[in-house]
């Protein structure tokens, strides 16, 4: 009886995995077809992402399946992004960085990519490059607090607060009315003064 029950559970799991797999493949194929139709693309992207999240990060077979998906959809930025996340989780920071830099070349204006690049570079102790990545992130979104905090922390550590102050002052030329940038300038100036 117990044996039958376990078999039923395993069958259910297998059925669920198959459904998930089919859904991901189907959604990605559809996404591939409508890549140029923005509204449809956004809708399909919203559909496929939860399924991909579940598959890649919540199943034992999702990682391998992701490789198959990448083979079937070569150059897919979405799959490359998932691959980078997966690699980072698995401690393959170099590989994750390579994938993120590949994505940065395709979408250099992507704030999240630049932040991720900074984080990965920091993990690899490539602090100067990490500073550059965070600086790019802040440049893309000057009032983004996350980028500022990361950049400030790393700048302080690397003794590059002057460069950060320069960058904030440059950004203030672009956004002279920004109260956030004004506060950032005050804060960095104070820290710079304290560090001296």
């Amino acid at each position, binding site marked *: 009886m117990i044996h039958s029950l376990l078999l039923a559970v395993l069958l259910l799991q297998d059925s669920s995995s*198959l459904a998930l797999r*089919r859904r991901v*493949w*189907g959604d*990605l*194929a*559809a996404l*591939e*077809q*409508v890549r140029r139709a923005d509204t449809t693309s956004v809708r399909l992207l919203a559909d496929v992402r939860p399924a991909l999240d579940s598959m890649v990060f919540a199943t034992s077979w999702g990682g391998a399946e992701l490789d*198959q998906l990448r*083979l*079937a*959809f*070569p*150059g897919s930025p979405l799959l490359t992004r998932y691959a980078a996340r997966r690699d980072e989780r698995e401690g393959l920071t170099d590989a994750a960085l390579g994938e993120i*830099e*590949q994505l*940065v*070349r395709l979408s*250099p*204006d992507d704030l999240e990519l630049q932040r991720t690049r900074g984080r990965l570079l920091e993990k690899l102790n490539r602090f100067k490059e990490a500073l*550059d990545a965070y*600086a*790019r992130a802040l*440049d*893309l979104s000057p009032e983004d607090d996350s980028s500022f905090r990361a950049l400030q922390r790393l700048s302080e550590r690397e003794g590059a607060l002057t*460069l950060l102050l*320069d960058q904030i002052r*440059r*950004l203030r*030329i*672009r956004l*002279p009315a920004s109260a956030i940038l004004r506060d950032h300038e005050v804060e960095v100036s104070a820290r710079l003064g304290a560090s001296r």
Partner: protein
Amino acid sequence: MRPLLLLALLAAPAWGQSPLRLVATGDTVLVYVLDAPATGGFIVYRRPVTPPTAPFAKRSPAAVMMASNPAVLSGALGADLPMAMRAVRAVDDAELFRRLRSDHFASGVLAMVSRNAAIALGHLYVDAGVTRNADYEYRVVYTQGDGKETGRTLTARVHVTDVVPLAPTGVQVSGADHEIHVTWHYPVYQGAPTDFTVGFHVYRTQGTGPAHRLTATPILRNDANGGGFSFVDRDVSGGTYSYQVSAADLAGRESGLTSILSSHTVDRTPPAIPTDLAVRNGDGVVDITWRLAPELDALGYHIERATGLHQPYTRLDRSLIPARRPIWTDTVPGGGHQYFYRVIAVDSTGNASAPSNPVAALPSDKTPPIAPTALALTTAQHRIAAHWAPSPSKDLRGYYVYHGEGASRVRLTGRPVRTTAFVDSGAADKGLNPGGRYVIRVSAVDSSYNESPGVEASIAIPDDQPPTPPSALSSTNVEGRYVLVSWSATASRDVQWYALTRTGGAADTGTRALHRFPASVREWHDTLVAHGRRYVYHLTAIDSAGNVSAATTDSVLFLEVVPPPQPRAAGARAVTGGVEVRWERVVSLELTGYNVYRSSLPTGVYRRLTRAPVSLLSFTDSTGHAGLFYTVRAVDRSGNESAASPVAVAR
């Protein structure tokens, strides 16, 4: 759909011979029926070739048919589902099912490149359990939709042995702009029974890593290109990549890999055009900043400036502006002008972006120009001509010229003058006051009307005009003691002296200069005068330049006011021919003579007998006679007569 269409060119001759293709691999024979009916299927029979009398045995338990609904079809396609959807441009299972069911051609070609598709679409039956190196004859019987066999059959023979496809030849790899091209050759299909090659796979190696396949499905063997094939790998970044190619057949077997060939990408893609240019206008400077170049290989920027939107741009930087510091501070030649800036991004390969959209800047100018120098003044005809050395400032608009007397300064130029000379000709062009000292001040003015400190010089207008004559000149005899000469001041303000001259005195030979008085003196006591003389005084004003005014004249008769003493001891005596009157001499310095008076009564009215004073001490009255009364008076030079002498009676 284009690749499938091209594959059809390859497949068509084969279909003309027989749509039944038998592919042996290992202990399996793949039975392909390329024209399997959409609404029906087929049943597979098999028998060994030897003995010839061996009967056909039914191999497929049921008719091989296309999947009956979209879900089953999608599931059966498995990993090849995306490829199939792309091939027929379907967006969901239902559309995929509809298209493959209605497009028999696409269905047949798809079956050739994907075993999953071949099975799902009812084109393939996999017959396992054959013996290697044995020969078999297959018969395929078409069926209707309900599985009943029709009269149409196909037969073919197969020798069970693995035939590995030939490897491609002539592989070449060349790098291009962010992509690598791989090309190779493969023999054109000649209908050989063992030639099942349907496509090619491309493998890539980066660095020392393992080779991995780039092609999920084979690159179709399209003989329309005459046996030449290519693949473009765009999933590359900078670096060197190595490639190998293999041929794949219907059974999924691959040939051996070609030898490794490497190439690297070339970056010919310029960086993105810089965006978000912003300026901050300062005093004669402009700060220009823009967004960081997003490319990882960005090296720096060039910045250019123009004075107008459609004017030529001039590059400002001598060397690239570093990529991480997208800011430039431009010191402009003249504030108050509009400038346009644009930025060009450059990557590490030297590719330059197109120029950004220009951004306008209007720097302020609060810096005064450099003052002019060497101010020199000359004067002529009551005018001042000023010349000066120009200011070296570049944005000079002109000069302001001021005129001043004392501490005050009045600007003469409403607008800045562009020349380095100016003539101050006074109010209403009437000239300046002679004798006046004037200050001329010149300052430089730039295009923003900033004014430099002034340079000053002063000059006096020569006084070549005489002053107005003094007025109210008066000469008065004061009790016979002196002449009081007095006058009022002249209207001219620059008078420094009054000069007084006199004529009429015994010692005056011509005009005698009496004295020169300071301008503050208003009177003079002339004591060098003699009683009884008339004096004429001439007074002139002399200004600071020595100009002499016309003379003002007055005269005075200087007389003694005290009469001389009366003659004493006057006596009269009738003589022949009249009466002789005698008297004693009167002692007086200014005595000029005596007048003799006669009356008929002692207290009567005496009438003067002498027309002019006589200087003798006697006088004969030719008409006199005894009994008349006489008296004598002394007369001085001032005409004063003394009191009458005692009366003398002629006897």
